[in-house]
């Protein structure tokens, strides 16, 4: 979706920047396949970064816990990648409707040399007049979709016929029930707890994080039309499946201060 807009913005020119994927090694397989196919198809430059240090330490979402895993494999990894390639700007698809502290995020979100976000020192953005100037070592996270809602995104996907990861559509998938949500057993690395037996259920995802930390919803929506219809009648927010958001009350804000997208 974001990529689609970026391609349009520069058409008929070529996308003037590479894509970066911070791979925690626990992403859904279908998502990885989709990523690689997309990059090949569109003749796009793709950079994949994995925090090798984290892998060496054996960090994983199960035994390390979701907080440490996210910190090391996502936040730290992102910082490493931005530093390594000396990117001064990173464009992300975060939206203000996702979560409370995101609702106060600017479209251009400035980070210090240490990638720290200070919500009290955000730059005002009157009239969409963006102040994009950076000091040495500073960087900016840009969120062009800030004012889109989840429903806006899907309606746009439908209008434009954008190709999306199949995980967004319902299909019978092997899942287990944990902490009130359905977790998909995407591969054998997800150890089963005593008495747990993966069951095949028709589920889909509204958001795609690390698979052991991303809850699926039971759904029969197999097409974009179905998804839009389902969303219009949904009474749950999109990030309800994200286990990392509810670690503590201000969980997302804390992660963002540390450098999370």
């Amino acid at each position: 979706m974001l990529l689609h807009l970026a391609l349009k913005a520069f058409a008929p020119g070529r996308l003037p920047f590479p894509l970066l994927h911070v791979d925690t090694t626990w992403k859904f397989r279908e998502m990885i396949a989709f990523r690689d196919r997309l990059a090949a198809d569109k003749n796009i430059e793709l950079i994949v970064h994995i925090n090798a240090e984290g892998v060496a330490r054996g960090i994983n979402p199960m035994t390390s816990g979701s907080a440490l895993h996210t910190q090391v494999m996502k936040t730290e990894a992102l910082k490493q990648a931005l530093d390594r390639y000396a990117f001064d700007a990173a464009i992300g698809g975060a939206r203000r409707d996702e979560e409370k502290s995101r609702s106060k995020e600017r479209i251009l979100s400035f980070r210090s040399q240490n990638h720290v976000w200070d919500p009290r020192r955000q730059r005002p953005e009157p009239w969409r007049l963006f102040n994009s100037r950076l000091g040495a070592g500073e960087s900016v996270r840009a969120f062009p979709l800030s004012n889109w809602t989840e429903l806006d995104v899907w309606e746009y996907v439908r209008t434009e016929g954008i190709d999306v990861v199949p995980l967004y559509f319902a299909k019978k998938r092997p899942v287990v029930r944990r902490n009130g949500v359905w977790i998909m057993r995407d591969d054998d690395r997800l150890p089963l707890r005593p008495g747990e037996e993966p069951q095949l259920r028709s589920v889909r995802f509204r958001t795609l994080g690390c698979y052991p930390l991303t809850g699926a919803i039971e759904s029969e929506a197999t097409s974009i039309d179905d998804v839009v219809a389902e969303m219009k009648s949904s009474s749950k927010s999109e990030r309800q499946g994200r286990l990392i958001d509810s670690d503590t009350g201000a969980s997302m804000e804390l992660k963002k201060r540390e450098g999370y997208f």
Partner: protein
Amino acid sequence: MRAAAIGTQLRFITCGSVDDGKSTLMGRLLWECSAIFDDQLEALRRDSRRHGTTGEELDFALLLDGLEAEREQGITIDVAYRYFATPQRSFVAIDCPGHEQYTRNMATGASEADLAVILVDARKGLLTQTMRHAVICALLGVGNVVLAVNKMDLAAYDVSVFERIRDGFGRFVDGLGFSNIQAIPVSALVGDNIGKRSTRMDWYEGPTLLDALETAGIDDAEETGPFRLPVQLVLRPNLDFRGIAGNVVSGRIRIGEEIVGARTGGRSLVAKILGTAGEQSVAKTGEAVVLTLAGEIDVSRGELMAIPQARPTYADQFTAHLVWMSEETCHPGRQYLMRLATQWVPATVGQIKYRLNIENLEHVAARELKLNEIGAVDVAAAAPVAFDTYAECRSTGSFILVDRLSNATVAMGMVLHSLRRATNVHWETALVDKKSRATLLKQTPKCIWFTGLSGSGKSTIAKELELQLHRRGCHTMILDGDNLRHGLNRNLGFTETDRVENIRRAGEVARLMTEAGLIVICSFISPYRADRELVRSMFMEGEFLEVFVDTPLEECIRRDPKGLYAKALKGEIPNFTGISAPYEKPDKPELWLQFGSLESDSSVPAQVQRVLDMLFR
């Protein structure tokens, strides 16, 4: 105004003082529109128990106060955005903080809003904060206002409480230029007149808050304005293609129409319009397009594309309202980087014409602007920029100033008018100076400035004074407000802006005449202190003598030499000083001619004598 249509989006800000219940109102509105999801409601229940102030009830305020610091302190410290929809239209709610120190956030929110919901606590009535919010909304051009008189449940649903607040607000904002004001009595906590009509206020027959939001018109001034496209990027993917990319911020353009670059003046015809879905025949306001042109013209990022029939101003100086947003105080003479549309250029804040007291709209003379202060200033850019006034087009009449060292955004600005000075006019130094000219005339040049109400006797005293000076062999000239308005200032009216310009020009002319060695006698109502201070600043120390002809309004009305008061009192003359426009008395005039005081004779000869005494003592 465009009428409400199904599927349109309304962006509105909510503003109110600290405890007016703004977040509660928004939370209630979202809840009644079913825009709160179950898991968010669950989190709210959890937070309500921990931080809430409403006992077992849901504390809707906690839903919006997103940042941890705000939840703990119970204040909203930043702008938050919420999205919801009804079958009628979709909404972006911009939640603005109420504290004075966050004027900047409020101004930011107002800059992109179609409507403002201003909250008032029924028990407290109108506060200075309420006035600040109304003034900021007006300055930023938000035309639609909903005055939500909240906590009616705690005011016994009393109609007189509501009416007093409504009428007081109406009086205050009269003249601020709002196109529509709707007052609604509500209780956000209980849910009266938010989404559902209250059964406890039968006396109120107007719309609920949600009705008002669903039916509010949206300002479409920009859609009907002249075509403007600030160039973001020139696309050159290959030798055969050259396209100008940007958003249309005003008006529309069709294939085959002529466009012009405001900076270079280069003209060409639009050959193709590429929109987000391929080729199209017309580009409208709000669309992101790539234009290809029939002929090559010099275009780069920062250029402002327009139509030849209605080109923007291209100049290096203008007067603007500034909202100062930095803890570092603004001092005239400091240089910043200015972003206006897609142009970046160094710019200096010149003279501060006045600071606006946004509680009573008075113009206050100021030498600096502090955090959250608003003032009118002259801005001088290092190179000419293309712009419109803010009233003509928000996107090309607005700008930000950025600190060159910290890169912080320190101010947001709205262009009032250009100072159409030619780019290449330099000051020419003469071989004969003021002192030599004055020596030859055997006198000391002065500017005697009479200020006071119409009919106070300024002109009479001025004329008599000139006669007396002439008899003594002085070389004089008299400048009179009415006379200047017949020639030099005939293009000016009586609005505040025009009055400022009127006085500025009079001051400049008087200054040139003192350069010539003359004693210049000026009589101008000059009602604003800041303007008189501006004129004073054009002269050397001791050269400018302010004489306050202090005749009471009743006496001026009684005299009414030109019959103007009679007309003004009937409402036939708008902006008439003393009747429908303010007069700011001088703080320390060089001479104060008080009418009817016991010590002094108010006759013309006696008053002229006092001026002469001042001149020749």
